[in-house]
Structures are given as structure tokens and as C-alpha cells.
């Protein structure tokens, strides 16, 4: 079997496990939970095989060393690897904490990333490496960055859950913060879903996606009516989430996850992700840039945004240690940190390059 068969299998397994985890949450039936976990593990194993096979396929093209053939060279492959790390960290947590409620929050992130791959129609072809990418430092850099991103993604969801549990009043800053964050996520997803329905898989590339398709079915629609309607609906959704956010709290309370455990999990993910990100993301990235271009740091937007992300997580660690911030305030910083991660990873390419290109 070739890698795409395994990728297909893992996608199906992840989608099924997501549905089952959500059922598990709703019905609290242990058998469903076990099946959900089984699917998650199946998905993970077949994804592992898929990555390994793709690695081998790439290597068999026979044009570079074994390490350099690691399938981590483009957006598609790096997203796949991100999903893999995310599921790995999730499964470890599930076994360590013996609690699978959390799966209903993590598997959607994985499925979302898979959906994004589909919607954007990004290239899945095995492409040969341009000279600048032929470096082992790059491999270590990308791999460690994504491990850190996966940990930060988990800290984002635990942080968000912690906020949901900890907030009482609707006019609290923390409450407004998390309902807003959730709304932005839901709305972005919805808008991307519409794009998908409207344009199917006609998109050919990243640039084109941004310029011609992203949000074209809603906010950026040619028709003023549609775009006004999109904004109105967004505001309504935000209001509804704000108004009925407390019902989410009830669901999470049903998880038997206390705010303390969530706070601790958030901290641990960041305390592991931070050193990994520092070494892999910043230091190895700098070494690679030094070898490829002769400058270890050029303040280009991607580097600068990684630095800002790093600052935010450093701030999180310091605020906990020095000011003893726990719970709400720390969780807000953690949520914020992951937004910076997303921006570093996608926003810099999508928004800034859009801004910087003519037309």
C-alpha cells in the first residue's frame, strides 16, 4: 500500500473517533469511549505508517540522503506532522490521566487541520527539495517546532476549558475573552466551510486560496448583501455564545476534570513546549538560516513572530512563577500564546504576504 492509502485510512479513523468522543461526552457510555480511543489509536498508527511510507517514497526518488528525505518540506506535510504530534500528546495524556472527555476537544482540532488540507487543496505531491531546504538542521527545526506547536495547541484547549470552568459572571473580562475566542474560531470555521461548499476543490495553491477564495463565500463576497449578512450572523453567533456560554460550563463540569487539573496540564504543556520551541524553533532555525543564507537572524516577519510567540510564553512562565498567577489570568495568556502560534504559522504567510504583494 502506498502512503496516500494510509493517509486516507487515518483521516477516516480520526473523523470517526471525533464523532465517537463527542457521543461519549453526551452519553457517558464507557463502551463508546473505548471504541473512540480504539479509532484514535488506529488513526494514529496508520498515520505513522503513512508518514513512514511517504518518507520511503521520497527517499526512493533517490536524490538525497535518508534524513533529508523526511516528509517535512511543505505546508501539507508539516500539517500532517502537526496532527500526528497532537494525537500522540493527546493519547499520552489520555492514558496518564485516565480521562477521555478531553478527546472531544482535541480530535476536532486534528479533523479541522485535515479539513483545512482538503479545503485549501494544497499540493500533496512529493516535490524535490530546492537547495536551501537540503539541511539536517532544517529537519530538526521543523520537527521540534511542530512538537512544540502540538503541546501549545493542547495548552490552548486546556486553558480555554479552564477559563470556561472558572468564570461566573457575563461581564467578567475572562468570560468575555473566552466567548470571543470561541466565537472567532466557530465563525472562521463556518466561513471556511462555506468556501468549501461553494468552491469545492478548485483551488490550486496557497497564494491563490488567500487572494481568490478565502472568505469569498461570506465576508469578502462580491455581493454587499452577502457580506453584510455574514457580519450580522457573526455578531449574532458571538452574542449567542456569550449569552449561553454557561451551558458549556455544565458540559465540562461533567468531565470530572477540575480547574486545577486543567491549570496544571496547561502549565506542563507549556513548560515542555517552551524549551522544545526555544531549541528547535529558535536556535536550530537560526543555525539553519546561518548556514543557508549567512545570517542567523534577519528579523524577517516569520522570525519576528516566532520571537513574539516566545515572549508570550516566557511571560506566561514568569507570571506564574513570580506573581503566582494561576487560573484565569494565566489561562488567558496561554490562549493568547496559541493565537500567536497560529499567526506565526499561517498568518504570516497568508496575511502579511497578502499585504506585501501587489494587487
Amino acid at each position, binding site marked *: 500500500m502506498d502512503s496516500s492509502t494510509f493517509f486516507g485510512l487515518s483521516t477516516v479513523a480520526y473523523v470517526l473517533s471525533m464523532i465517537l468522543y463527542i457521543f461519549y461526552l453526551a452519553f457517558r457510555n464507557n463502551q463508546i469511549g473505548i471504541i473512540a480511543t480504539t479509532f484514535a489509536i488506529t488513526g494514529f498508527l496508520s498515520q505513522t505508517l503513512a508518514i513512514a511510507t511517504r518518507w520511503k517514497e521520497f527517499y526512493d526518488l533517490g536524490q538525497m540522503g535518508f534524513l533529508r528525505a523526511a516528509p517535512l518540506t511543505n505546508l501539507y506535510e508539516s500539517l500532517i506532522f502537526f496532527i500526528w504530534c497532537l494525537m500522540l500528546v493527546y493519547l499520552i495524556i489520555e492514558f496518564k490521566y485516565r480521562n477521555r472527555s478531553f478527546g472531544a476537544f482535541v480530535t476536532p482540532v486534528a479533523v479541522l487541520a485535515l479539513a483545512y488540507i482538503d479545503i485549501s487543496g494544497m499540493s500533496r505531491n512529493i516535490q524535490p527539495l530546492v537547495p536551501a531546504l537540503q539541511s539536517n538542521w532544517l529537519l530538526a527545526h521543523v520537527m521540534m517546532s511542530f512538537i512544540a506547536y502540538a503541546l501549545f495547541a493542547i495548552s490552548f484547549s486546556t486553558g480555554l476549558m479552564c477559563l470556561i470552568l472558572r468564570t461566573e459572571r457575563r461581564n467578567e473580562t475572562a468570560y468575555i475573552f473566552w466567548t470571543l475566542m470561541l466565537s472567532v474560531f466557530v465563525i472562521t470555521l463556518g466561513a471556511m466551510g462555506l468556501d468549501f461548499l461553494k468552491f469545492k476543490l478548485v483551488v490550486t495553491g496557497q497564494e491563490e486560496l488567500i487572494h481568490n477564495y478565502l472568505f469569498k463565500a461570506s465576508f469578502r463576497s462580491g455581493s454587499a448583501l452577502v457580506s453584510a449578512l455574514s457580519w450580522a450572523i457573526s455578531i449574532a453567533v458571538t452574542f449567542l455564545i456569550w449569552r449561553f456560554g454557561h451551558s458549556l460550563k455544565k458540559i465540562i463540569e461533567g468531565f470530572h476534570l477540575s480547574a486545577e487539573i486543567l491549570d496544571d496540564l496547561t502549565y506542563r504543556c507549556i513548560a515542555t513546549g517552551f524549551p522544545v520551541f526555544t531549541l528547535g524553533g529558535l536556535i536550530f532555525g537560526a543555525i539553519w538560516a546561518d548556514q543557508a543564507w549567512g545570517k542567523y537572524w534577519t528579523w524577517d516577519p516569520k522570525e519576528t513572530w516566532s520571537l513574539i510567540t516566545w515572549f508570550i510564553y516566557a511571560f506566561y512562565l514568569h507570571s506564574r512563577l513570580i*506573581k503566582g498567577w494561576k487560573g484565569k489570568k494565566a489561562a488567558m495568556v496561554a490562549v493568547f500564546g496559541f493565537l500567536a502560534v497560529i499567526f506565526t504559522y499561517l498568518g504570516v504567510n497568508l496575511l502579511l504576504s497578502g499585504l506585501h504583494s501587489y494587487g
Partner: protein
Amino acid sequence: MKKEKGSTFIDKIWDMFASVKFAVIIFAVIALTSIVGTIVEQQVEPEKNIVVLTKLFGESVAPDIYNILFKLGFMNMYHSWWFVALLLLFASSLIICSIDRLPRILKLVNEPIHPIPVEHLGKMTIKKTLDIRGKIPDIKQTAETALKAAGFKPSEAPTGNGGLQLYAEKGNLSRLGVYLTHISILVILTGGMIGSFFGFNGYLQLNEGETSSVAYKDPTTPIPLGFEIRCDNFEVYFYGDSDMPKDYKSWLTVIKNGKEVMKKTIEVNDPLKYEGITFYQSSYGTGMDTDSGIFVLRVSSKDGKSAEINPMLNDKFTIPGTSITGHIKYFSPALALDPEGRAYTYAQQMLNPATYIEFTEAGTQKYSGWFFRRYPNTWILPDGNKVEFVNYWGVEYTGMQVRKDPGVFIVYFGCIIMALGLYITFFMSHRRIWVDIARKNDNIKISIGASANKNRAAFEGKIEKLARILGAGPEGKK
């Protein structure tokens, strides 16, 4: 333990720098201004940023905003005096903050662990008590072995009435990991500053066969190298017959005082270093001077007469056995057609070489068209004659990034320290443990107290294990 609140001016400044609030403000200002620097493109022509600002703020105010940002130095902000000043403030805050807290941390590190009264053990963050049967020396033996297995070196103190206390600590130096991390930031900043004050970043474009004794900061500012560098040859390798480069290499020779002192083939990710100056392969292209390029064409008539010729641009040739002449009019190293079918050159590299040839017979024009080296189907003429485009020998140039950075080793050294410091900070901890063994009626009462400044859960697990060993050990013998 806290230092008296400062009263003199110096003390006030000191306190300000030592305060976390100040550090956070600087942190935030650096982050926010950096964001501006990622939105306005750095060191580019003004038009580019005016376009960006127009998109953001509209046409009417964009030029004014541009002027304000320009005056404030935002167009090259990471090298502006105020950004460097911010970095220095950040560094000072870090230094002073660390010095301020150092005595307390050193005390924690140096203060040896000592036995503590059993009542206090109950107030520790990790605690455990057991009542078991057995003899004190046996239990002590078991406890000591278990502690040693866990990497501790226990000391022992009698507590009266035949009882005793074992106590141990490890990893007390790990509290200094934070300092290592902070120092590494200073080291990296220092390295960066040294690099930008005493080094340079330049560019050098060399045609094959050409020699240079300077590099260029920008087209009008040469920087002397102190030696000469010559490009002997340049080659590009492609993946299969795509126009995707797999590798490019330059064969370089360093000449000092008229003698060849070094030869090296550089490629991307493998630079040449000489006397502190490094040459990185960064780009390449075909010399603009297409007049001196030589074509290799194999021309054959439809009845099989053929000849290999080496014309240059604007030369004429005849197809053997016929009276048809070709006139080489244009050359492009990378030709593409736009949607309307017009030809244009999309790169200066030899990605898709093509030549335009016009054919005439007895003074009348017959046909003309583009011949691509990559595409043999373009070689056949309408009348069945053939012009094979075999090769083009043009002068290629190699583009190199030339850098001198005396600070780079300091930066790398700082990175190593940072990795080490973070490892110590996050994956090691200062662990202390006390095991009190006392007689209580007929039984033995064991009280365990312990603390760890990091990863407490993991340590708690170890204590559970210790308690299990102590509970099971002596009893097992009965």
C-alpha cells in the same frame, strides 16, 4: 530577609530595574514595535510600504503615516537607535533583576539540609506517614537502600528514644538553571551587537573567470576583503528535466598576495570561510552580455545531411544541402509565454533557454519561431528540416552572500548555554526529603516529608514508591 527599600536616587533606579513590572513593560514595547516592523517591510523602496499603508488606512493618509513612520525610523527599525536602546534596557533589567535575587537563591543552593522536628514534616507539601512493625535498624537499612537507589546520599541524625531521622537532598544546583538561561540571553545579545558593529553583510556577483578584491554592501559601497576571490566555474544541476534546481555550485579560489592559498567548491548550505569572511552560495544567473554566448546547434535537412555549428547571436547559417538560411535574432535564458501568447523572459537563470530564429530562402522570409533546448518538438521546421538546440555556452555568474561576523561564535555559545539552562530549569529540580523513624508504643512510626521546586507530581510518585517499599520490606521478613 528583604533588603531595605532604597532611598537614594541610585537605589530608586535600581529598584525600578529590578521590578518585574518594568521588565514586562519593556517586553511589551519590544513585542509591539516588532509587530509594526513585520507589517511595514524593512529596507525597501518607499513605494512598497506606501502601497501597504494604503491598503490599511486608505489613500488619503497613507503618505503622511509613511512620513511619520519614516522619521521615527520604522523603515529600518531593528537597527534604529531606539530599538537597540530598548534591547539594552531589557538586558539591564535582566541583569539587575538577577543580581537582586541572587543572594536568596544562593542561600537556598548553599544552605545544607538539616534534620527538622517531626511536627514540621506534617506541614511539608509532600507528606506520608506509616505505622509498621519491625526493628529500627532494619527499617533504616531499607530506607537507606531505597534512598540511595533513588539517587540520594542520606545523612542520619538521632532523634532520641532510639529513633532517628534520615535526610537528603539533590539537585540544589538546579536552582541556578534560571540564571544560566538569563545569562544566555545576555550572551546572545552581546554576540549580536558585536556582529553588527564589527562585521558586515555584503554581496558579490562574479562571472565565471572573474576575480574581485571587494564585496558590496550596496551597489555603490565596496568593502575591501583583504584578499582576492576568483570564480573558476559555476554549474547548476536540475531535478530530471524540470526547471527545479537541485543544487548549484561555484568553484572558488582565494588569492592572497598573488598566491593561490585556498580552493573550495561551495554550494548552498556549504560555504567557504577565509580570514573570518564567509562566502555563501545564494543565487546565480546568466550574464547580461548575451552577445558573447555561443550556441551549439545541430542542423539537419530533411534528406539527412547534417552539421554541428557554433554560431553566436545575430549570426547566420545555412541548412546543409538547401539554400535556406537561418538568422539567430534573440536569446532568452528562461522563456515563457503569457496568456496572449507573447514571449517574455521570466528569470535570469538558465531555466528554459530558447532562441528565436528567422529563416529565409532567396531573400524571402519563410518562417520563424522559438526553439527551446528543453522541448525537441520545437526543433522541427514546417518543411521537415530540423534545428536541434543542443546547448548554449554563456557566461554565468554566481551570486554570493559575503559576511564577516566576529560575534557569531558568541551567539552560538549563548545558544548552548540557553539550551543547557532551559534543560536544567525545566527538567531538573531541587528535591529534599526527610524520613523520620520513631518508636511508637509497639510499632514503628515512619514520617516522610519532602519538597521539590519543580515537577512535584513526579517526586510524589517516588515518595509513594518509597513508602510502599518501607511498608512491605520489614513486614515481608515476618
